[in-house]
């Protein structure tokens, strides 16, 4: 694996992975992946199905811990701190590294409670008034406020798919995370809802480090500044999005983005 290191000059990486392997039982899903995630950047992970990009994403906030057979080796740092170190509190880690899932998964609770849940359990809102402010700010940032401000008491599951996904984004940003991981956030949405989410990602850029896994190469090209191409559990190529799509260094990358396989 020869990577063009000059493309990766990220002065102050938010997260750094070094030599990460992920195993499910005996099967190795991720093989020796090293990557930096920039603070003000959107990083896209692309690759064919089953290439391990979601697995790698889920190891960035230790969601793989919930899979009994999963085992992660190597180092993943958040602000220079090893997230797999015994001293790292996994609950706090997941608040700092928020996640948006493939299928919109609002809680079967009111819109307000969906967004307010995280701040509530982390004690971020001492009073109801504070929580109101946090909920409103999160919904505004997620671009959902105008659509739901008159019906915050309605169930989150009653919203449309695209609104549900923005609600999930609002829920993630309500706890004021540093990184947001998005696992194919638009794969269950129609093109209009997808466009809204992409717009939202643009707006959130700079406030949070964003990592997005996507099947859709146009989407990666549109929303990201850095792109990582995964294939068969390895990181094939990582660089500026423009370089990856216009001038890929690796034959496999070129084949994939030109639709030769995947």
């Amino acid at each position, binding site marked *: 694996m020869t990577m063009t290191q000059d493309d990766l000059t990220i002065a102050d990486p938010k997260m750094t992975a070094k030599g990460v392997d992920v195993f499910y039982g005996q099967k190795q899903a991720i093989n020796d992946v090293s990557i930096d995630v920039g603070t003000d950047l959107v990083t896209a992970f692309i690759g064919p199905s089953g290439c391990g990009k979601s697995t790698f994403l889920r190891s960035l906030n230790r*969601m793989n811990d*919930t899979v009994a057979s999963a085992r992660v080796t190597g180092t993943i740092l958040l602000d220079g701190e090893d997230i797999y170190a015994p001293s790292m509190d996994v609950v706090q880690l997941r608040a700092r590294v928020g996640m948006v899932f493939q299928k919109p*998964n609002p*809680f079967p609770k009111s819109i307000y409670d969906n967004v307010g*849940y*995280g701040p509530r359990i982390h004690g971020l809102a001492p009073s109801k008034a504070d929580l109101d402010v946090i909920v409103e700010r999160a919904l505004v940032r997620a671009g959902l406020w105008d659509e739901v401000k008159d019906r915050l008491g309605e169930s989150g*599951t009653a919203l449309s798919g695209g609104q549900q996904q923005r609600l999930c984004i609002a*829920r993630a940003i309500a706890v004021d995370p540093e990184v947001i991981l998005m696992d194919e956030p638009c794969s269950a949405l129609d093109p209009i809802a997808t466009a809204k989410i992409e717009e939202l990602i643009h707006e959130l850029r700079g406030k949070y480090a964003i990592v997005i896994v996507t099947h859709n190469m146009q989407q990666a090209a549109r929303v990201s500044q850095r792109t990582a191409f995964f294939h068969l559990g390895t990181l094939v190529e990582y660089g500026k999005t423009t370089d990856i799509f216009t001038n890929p260094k690796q034959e496999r990358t070129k084949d994939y983005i030109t639709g030769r396989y995947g």
Partner: protein
Amino acid sequence: MNRETAPTDWKGAAMQKRIAGRYAAERRFKLFGLGAVLLSGLFLAFLLFVMVGNGLRGFTYTNVEVPIDFKAMPLTVDASRLGDADADQAIADAGLADIVAFAADEALGADGAKMISENAWKEVRTQIKADPAILQGKTVFHLPASSEVDIAAKEGAKGALGAKVDALQRDGKLSTGIHWPFFKNADATDPAVAGIWGALKGSVLTIFIAFLIAFPTGVLAALYLEEYAPKNRWTDLIEVSINNLAAVPSIIFGLLALAVFINWFGICQASPLVGGLTLALMTMPVIVIASRNAIKSVPPSIRDAALGVGASPVQVVFHHVLPLALPGILTGTIIGMARALGETAPLLLVGMRAFIGDVPGGICSPSTVLPMQIFLWSDEVDRGFVEKTSAAIIVLLIVLLSMNALAIYLRNKFEKRW
């Protein structure tokens, strides 16, 4: 064209026959299903018809009009003792039973005393205690008839008794009313005063104890097994054991309870406490299995969502998994409890089949339960108990149906869509 086989003949005779056969099979299956439904409906209708037909009469009782003149037959009781705690004893000692028997003979003819219940004088005693002025004059009492007269009045009878009852009916001396003692008393040897309340209260206490023990332990065990326990050979073993425990015949639990609770721990026997513990043992595996299924059916995406915003495992369980699993857990629990309520076998062995003449005062006083009361009454020789048995069955069914209705209500109330 170079085909290897002839084209399928969709219109040919063989194909038509196959189609006809398929439709016939379809119709046959539908008919069998309908037949099964009709048959079970018929059984249910028959059961209800017989039960209600017999049982409703068990809720009423025949009273006989007996005038008693306390001026002619004075009852010498110190008026000041009537308010005391031992008033019952004082009145009994004064010979009220004989006075009532004599008055009945006088009013109803030679065998009059046998036509009213042997406990009828207690009814008079109750009225005297309520109003001592009765002792100063003549009063007409409606006293419970004897079991034979009651049956004869309700069903008709032949011979001397039948003729007598008919005569009484013509004279308007018989009246039928709701049988209040049935709702207030415990078991008795005389159907005129035997009641269901003792058994009903025993059942309620027993089920309450069983619920208090089986529900929290069952749900916590299920939560631990589903959410925390590592998946290894030990948890597999536990799972198999729980599934087997749910299939163990209930009388075995009775033997276990007899050996452990009564002989070892010395818990008061025949009490709702020991009965409840026994039924808790029996019901817990059912609750564990129902709860595990309910917990399993909570979508993993909800768990992911909660973990993703940094909820701890306990928060995930208590904020999300448990509320979403609750309808299923409650339904399973109530069905398990309803089964426990109708259970007789394990309670035989912990002494709850004894004749208990008093309404249980607490969880440690001797008691029986509804199905046991039905079993005991169905064994009685006195014909008056036949309809008491049916009436008790109706009470048991009403309690069971209310519990099932509660289960459906709770499930609909807590069910959420996502």
